[in-house]
C-alpha cells in the first residue's frame, strides 16, 4: 500500500449556524485546509465529499456546495451520502490507485433546521420500524438499558465518560458542550431518556470539516510531520436490532482488527461516539487501554455535527499527531443505529 497521510485539517462547529448556507460557512473551512499546505483546488488530484439530503431537507443538496471548491475548470470529484469519513476512505482508495498524489475531502451538516433525532427514524427498517417513528435517542436508550442491566457498564462509568468529555472539551473552542461537570453532578442530572441523562446524549452542532490527504514525498513536502494512515477499514453489523448484540460492536472490532489497531501502543483515540454508551462499547471493541487518551477533543458528545462527526474525529486525531501530541492514534467514525457501521483509521507520526 502507498503511504498516504493527512497533511492539513480545518473545521467549524457551532450549536447553530444561523444565517449562513452550507456553502457559505464551508468555504472558509475548505480554504483554510488547502491554504495551510499551499494548494489550490486545481493542484488537487481528487475531491470527495459527504453530506445528507434528508438532513438538509433538499434533494441533490450537495450540488450547492460543490461551487465552494471552485470547480471551474472541472475537477475530478465524487460524493457519498455518508459521513465524510467514508468520503476520506474513498479518497484514500483513489490515492492507492497511484494516478494522483493529493486529495481533498470535506463534509458538513446542519442539524439545527430540523429535528435530527426524529429524522433518523427514516434510516430504520421501512416496513417494521420506521413507521413507528422511534427517535434516535430512544433506540440508543434501549441498548443502554441492556448494557447496564447485563453488567457491561454502570451508570457511574457512563457519567465518568461524560465528565471526561466535558473536561477535554473545555479546551476545545470547536466544542459546544464545554462546561465542566463532576461525575456526581452528572449522576444527579435528570434522566431524560431512561436510563440516559442529558450528558449521555450528544450536543448537536452545525458545521463541517475539510481535510487534505497526500501521498509519499508529496506529503513530506507539504507537512513537516504528516499523520500517516497506517490502516483504514470499515465494516457493517446487521441492521435488525433484534438480531444484534447491542452491548458490543462486532463491526467495530472487525474494522479495528483489519486496521491494525493492536499492533502497537495507542496514544490517543478519537471515537465517533454520540453517546457515552457508544464510547464504552468502542473502547472495548478496539481494545483500548488506560494508556490511551480517549477523545481529547471532547468527542461527539461535546459537539455532534451530523455527517461530519466522523471526519472530524480523523481531523482531530491527525492534527494531534502532526502537533507531536502523540505518535500513534486511532480515529473512528460510525453510521446507523447503535454503531451499526464502523470505520477505523490508524494514524502514525514519524
Amino acid at each position, binding site marked *: 500500500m502507498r503511504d498516504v497521510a493527512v497533511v492539513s485539517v480545518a473545521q467549524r462547529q457551532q450549536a447553530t449556524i444561523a444565517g449562513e448556507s452550507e456553502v457559505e460557512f464551508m468555504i472558509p473551512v475548505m480554504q483554510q485546509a488547502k491554504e495551510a499546505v499551499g494548494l489550490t483546488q486545481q493542484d488537487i488530484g481528487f475531491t470527495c465529499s459527504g453530506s445528507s439530503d434528508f438532513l438538509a431537507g433538499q434533494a441533490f443538496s450537495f450540488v450547492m456546495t460543490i461551487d465552494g471548491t471552485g470547480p471551474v475548470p472541472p475537477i475530478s470529484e465524487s460524493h457519498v451520502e455518508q459521513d465524510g469519513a467514508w468520503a476520506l476512505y474513498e479518497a484514500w482508495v483513489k490515492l492507492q490507485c497511484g494516478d494522483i498524489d493529493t486529495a481533498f475531502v470535506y463534509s458538513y451538516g446542519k442539524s439545527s*433546521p430540523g429535528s435530527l433525532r426524529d429524522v433518523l427514524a427514516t434510516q430504520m427498517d421501512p416496513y417494521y420500524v420506521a413507521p413507528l417513528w422511534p427517535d434516535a435517542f430512544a433506540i440508543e436508550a434501549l441498548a443502554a438499558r441492556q448494557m447496564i442491566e447485563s453488567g457491561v457498564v454502570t451508570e457511574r462509568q457512563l457519567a465518568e465518560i461524560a465528565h471526561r468529555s466535558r473536561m477535554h472539551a473545555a479546551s476545545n473552542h470547536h466544542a459546544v458542550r464545554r462546561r465542566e461537570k463532576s461525575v456526581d453532578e452528572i449522576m444527579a442530572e435528570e434522566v431524560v431518556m431512561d436510563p440516559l441523562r442529558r450528558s449521555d446524549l450528544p450536543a448537536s452542532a452545525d458545521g463541517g470539516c475539510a481535510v487534505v490527504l497526500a501521498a509519499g514525498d508529496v506529503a513530506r513536502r507539504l507537512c513537516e510531520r504528516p499523520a500517516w494512515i497506517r490502516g483504514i477499514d470499515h465494516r457493517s453489523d446487521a441492521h435488525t436490532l433484534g438480531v444484534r448484540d447491542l452491548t458490543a460492536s462486532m463491526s467495530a472490532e472487525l474494522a479495528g482488527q483489519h486496521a491494525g489497531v493492536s499492533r502497537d501502543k495507542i496514544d490517543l483515540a478519537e471515537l465517533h461516539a454520540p453517546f457515552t454508551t457508544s464510547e464504552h462499547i468502542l473502547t472495548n471493541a478496539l481494545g483500548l487501554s488506560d494508556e490511551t487518551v480517549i477523545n481529547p477533543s471532547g468527542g461527539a458528545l461535546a459537539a455532534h455535527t451530523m455527517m461530519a462527526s466522523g471526519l472530524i474525529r480523523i481531523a482531530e486525531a491527525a492534527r494531534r499527531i502532526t502537533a507531536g501530541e502523540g505518535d500513534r492514534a486511532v480515529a473512528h467514525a460510525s453510521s446507523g443505529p447503535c454503531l451499526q457501521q464502523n470505520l477505523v483509521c490508524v494514524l502514525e507520526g514519524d
Partner: protein
Amino acid sequence: MSDEVLTAPLVLEYPFTRTTGAIIGAFLTGLKQATMIGVRRSDGSVLCPPLEYDPADASDLDELVEVGQTGTVTTWTWNGAPRPQQPFDQDFAWAMIKLDGADTPMLHAVLVDGAADMSTGMRVQIKWRDDREGHIADIAGFVPVDGTVAVSWVSSEPVESVQSVRTPIRIEYTYTPGSSLSQYLRAMQDKTILGDRCPDTGQVFVPPRGVSPVAGKRTTEMVELPDVGYIESFNITRVPIKMRPDLTPPYCSAWVVLDGASVGFMGLVINVAPEAVRIGMRVRAVWKPDDELEMSATNILGWEPTGEDDVEIADYARIGRVDGGSR
C-alpha cells in the same frame, strides 16, 4: 441592512407506498388477521418480524411460522408523550419484546402509565387495533399480561393478502436562505434586484449564492442590477404540470440575463405569445403591485418584452458573459 435571519417553514411529506414481496407481505397480512408471523432460519431459530434474508449469510428465508402474542420485554425506555407521527394515542414506553415462539425481540410500544410500570422481564401481550390494514401499527401496542388469556384468533373471513403498505413521511424543517440570498430577498421587497460579485473575476451572479464557482471564494460584494435584460434561451411547457396549477400551458420559461449579470436565471415570460419569444429578446420585469410585495422572488410575476432590438448571440454554446478580468 437588517441582520435578522430570514426563515421559512419547509415541510417535506409524501404518502410512500411500499410493495412488500411475499415474506413481509405475509407478516402484514397476518397482522390484519391478528396473528404474528415469524420466519425460521437455517439454524432452526425463529425471527419475528420475519426478514426475507438471513443477516448471518444473506440466504433466502421462506419458512413462515406462527408465533405467540404474548412475550417478554428484553429492554425498554420511557418515551412519554408521542412525538410527531408516532402512531400511539397515549404515553408509552419503547421496548424490545421477544414473543413466545420467536428467538429475536421486536421493537414496539408498551402502553403503560409511567416508567415505574416497566421492567425488563415483564410479560406483555399484544393489544390489537380494531381497524387493521396490514401495517405495523395494527398492533396498537403491548400491554402487561393481565391474567386474561391472549387468544390467538384468526378472522373467519379470509383477508386479502397484503402486497403493499402506506407509510407516510412528514418532516418539518426551518429553512434559512443563507447570507447572500437573504440580502437578495430583503431587497426584493423594495423591487431591488441584487447580485453578488466574484472577488477574482468580477462575475456577477443573480440570484446571489454567496459563492463564486469560478474562484471557489465567498462573494460578499453585493451589486444592484437593473430589472431589464435579455433571453438566452427558453422552454415552452405545453402540458399542465401538477406542481404549478396556476400556470396554463403553453407557457414560456426562459434564461433571463440581466444587464450587468454574468449568468442568467430561470424566469417566466409573460405578456407575449410563447411562439413570439426569441433568443436574444430584450425583457423587463413585471412586478406585483406594491402592496403585495414580500421578501420573495415571487415579487416578479414574469418578464415581458421591452420592444428593443434583440441582442445578438455570438456563441450559442456558451451562456452569460465573462465579466471582469480574465483568470
